[in-house]
């Protein structure tokens, strides 16, 4: 085993820069994010449109749709919060968990993903009150619990502590 004590070049670069308070940096970052809110909303709508609303019974087709839905949702995670739709991130994460669980088990069941897509569609409705959004998210809990692949204890704790 080789051990190297490397220079922390990030620390050096920060030390070389003019002083800026962290709280000032945070305010500026929030301001910069506010500039792309509309772009994020538009991106959410584009991704949302990519989900199929009708899926046949062909298992190969369902398998492909599950994979594509996973990819589409994965891209969505993180954008919802900036778009002012943080619940969309929650549902997208849940969809990824479920799709991943289906793929690991080799299941070809579109139904648990269909309910996620339906919830996402409802989330985009401007007239849906916050309490309604939370109810919808809660309703997905049992679906996620049933279909998401339960992480092994050691990997779950590793990821929890690393993120």
């Amino acid at each position, binding site marked *: 085993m080789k051990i190297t004590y490397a220079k922390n070049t990030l620390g050096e670069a920060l030390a070389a820069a003019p002083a800026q308070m*962290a709280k000032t940096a945070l305010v500026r970052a929030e301001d910069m994010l506010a500039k792309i809110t509309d772009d994020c909303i538009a991106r959410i709508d584009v991704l949302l449109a990519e989900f199929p609303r009708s899926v046949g019974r062909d298992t190969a087709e369902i398998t492909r749709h599950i994979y594509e839905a996973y990819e589409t949702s994965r891209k969505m995670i993180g954008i919802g919060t900036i778009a002012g739709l943080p619940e969309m991130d929650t549902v997208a994460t849940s969809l990824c968990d479920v799709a991943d669980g289906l793929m690991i088990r080799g299941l070809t069941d579109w139904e648990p993903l269909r309910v996620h897509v339906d919830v996402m569609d409802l989330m985009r409705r401007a007239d849906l009150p916050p309490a309604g959004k939370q109810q919808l998210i809660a309703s997905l809990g049992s679906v996620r619990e049933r279909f998401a692949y339960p992480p092994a204890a050691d990997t779950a704790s590793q990821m929890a502590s690393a993120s």
Partner: protein
Amino acid sequence: MSLAKVPKALLNLQKTSVLVADADNMGQNIIVQILIGFGARNIVRCDELEEVKRQLGVANFELVIIDPSSFGPEGYDVISWMRRSLGPPNRHAPVLVATGHTAQNRIGQLRDVGANFIVSKPMSPAILLDRILWMSREKRPYIETDNYVGPDRRWHDATLPDGVPGRRQKDREAAARIAAGGAMSQADIDLVMNAAQTTVAI
């Protein structure tokens, strides 16, 4: 306590070269907007793995932020490649993995690629700032073995960032004793003092 919440904490990325690698344009945009807010002027954006490798080969970066899952299975290999194939300073550049979702069969791989930190999206500016500050103070050595190249994954006495629970038995025992209002052992006091020193000395 979060480093970002320390009143005297400073952060300016004006002199920091950052590589942002994300195959999804909007994912890139979000991180770049935050970095610009933090003062960054030299940001290189990559949406293809070959470009990531090319950039790492021709320019020095003080910070690499990557979403490996966005590049498919090969995305996870680029950090290992960086740690094994490049020379310093990029070989030891801090790598922050910002991942949307990690498939179960990739979790082990992600743990072993040699990243300095893994952050789940959605990522707020406060989280990113906190992790950058934390990495800027990091003193972990780099370990090279047949199976792993990257920062030492044994955290020794280093304090974890805000919101990251300690995995060691002594972390959990100390937390439980303190929460129960029980008497603190010298080891508990050392843990708390170490945390305090790490968070105020910016």
